[in-house]
């Protein structure tokens, strides 16, 4: 099983880099993952990660994209409420990057 190192600790991840245990997540992990993709996490990135993390804490599921974009629009302004914006922030897509950085369970089934 591959691992990921952050702040001196090592975490199990799967072959696609998703954390194997969502409860272990730390902000540091997100940063390390982003670095791996050559991304520097800006405040805007953190807005998304924070929303995902809060939503997951509350509902134990990842939000549908629609909800994510709606909420981003509500909280941070209309220009942030669309998939185009999300893909600009996370070029590999919200599932592959934002959810992964936020330590959410790997999305399933929807392929």
């Amino acid at each position, binding site marked *: 099983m591959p691992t990921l190192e952050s702040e001196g600790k090592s975490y199990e991840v799967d072959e696609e880099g998703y954390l194997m245990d969502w409860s272990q997540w730390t902000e540091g992990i997100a940063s390390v993952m982003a670095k791996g993709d050559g991304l520097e996490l800006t405040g805007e990135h953190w807005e998304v990660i924070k929303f995902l993390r809060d939503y997951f804490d509350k509902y134990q599921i990842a939000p549908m*994209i629609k909800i994510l974009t709606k909420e981003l629009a509500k909280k941070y302004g209309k220009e942030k409420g669309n*998939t185009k914006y999300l893909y600009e922030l996370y070029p590999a*897509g919200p599932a592959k990057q934002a959810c992964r950085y936020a330590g959410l369970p790997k999305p399933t*089934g929807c*392929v």
Partner: protein
Amino acid sequence: MGGKYKTPMLDELEKGPWPSFVTEIKKAAKRTEMADDELGQVEKSYVTKRGYWKHGGIVGVLGYGGGVIGRYSSLPNEFPGIAHFHTVRLNQPSGFFYTAEALKMIMDIWDKYGSGLTNMHGSTGDLVLLGTTTENLEVLFAEYSSRGWDLGGSGSAMRTPSCCVGQARCEWACIDTMAICNEVTQYYQDQLHRPSFPYKFKIKVAGCACDCVAAIARADLSIIGTWKDNIRIDQAEVKKYADGGMNIQAEIVEMCPTACMSYDGKTLKVNDAQCSRCMHCIAKMTKALKQGKVKGASILVGSKAPIVVGSLLSWVVVPFMELEAPFDNLKDLADKMIEWWDDNAKPRERIGELIEVKGMRPFLEAIEMPPVPQQVKYPRKDPFFFWSESDFN
């Protein structure tokens, strides 16, 4: 390369007259380790009666959220060639038409970066390239897209639309299935590549009630060609069928579901007011009978596979709609459907399932269609029904 594994089980499947997928894998295995390890793993499955694939992964190309299905062997040490074995969905041209030239180009690139195996085609309609690694994905995409080929859909997104051959070859196509399919594919590019729906959404277009693309059974939005006016009969051709040995009474008249035909040994008649345009008589006597001239499509909604609530066939929502390029009325309608679905569905809820939960009324109101008897096989039986304030006026 090739021949790493003994495959006595699979070898059995090279016998017999039907073309063998094993032979195909072996051909590719001569050139790629991927195909060779695939062969080995499938042989193992045949022995142990189980698959060895990990649960689907999330891989793809930058800027897109779909189009690639991640796949990893659960025995990567035993079969390293298929540690990664992702599929790439190339969006097929409407009607699955190709030139040899185009196909060969696709194959050449695939040989360079993939397993050498394909599915022609995937069940949704894509040209499926079977088996490559994560690092090759961007390369493949650049190669193909620069040559005019884009990826198809996957995930909770618009899926690759598909259609029957339609007016390209078929005398019964009441609508231009290929043009419609192409148009909606182009119109929904963003939704196709960047999943943003509650679940998958499929569109299929058939030119007539024969439904040669099984639209009614496996598309959230099923578009099926039909006509409104009278069947045209060429009695001379009817005679030829009779002379040719067709038992018109038994094969045509008695099989007409509405019993609206009659034949006195000479003249074949249709009581057009009763005809339901089922296509039987026309299909079996194509030279003698022709559809009317006022053509268009019926719009049906909601079919899907059995998970979760049991399989559904699509339901009629718009009995008749004229469809002419650029098909704005259709795109409008589809937009309204999707918007209502998007606003109301839970995650992983298909539009047909949502209609079952909410009832037809809010859906029809959302798409601005009045209730009409064509929408039902029969009206409700139990006297339990809702009233809105708007009904009291």
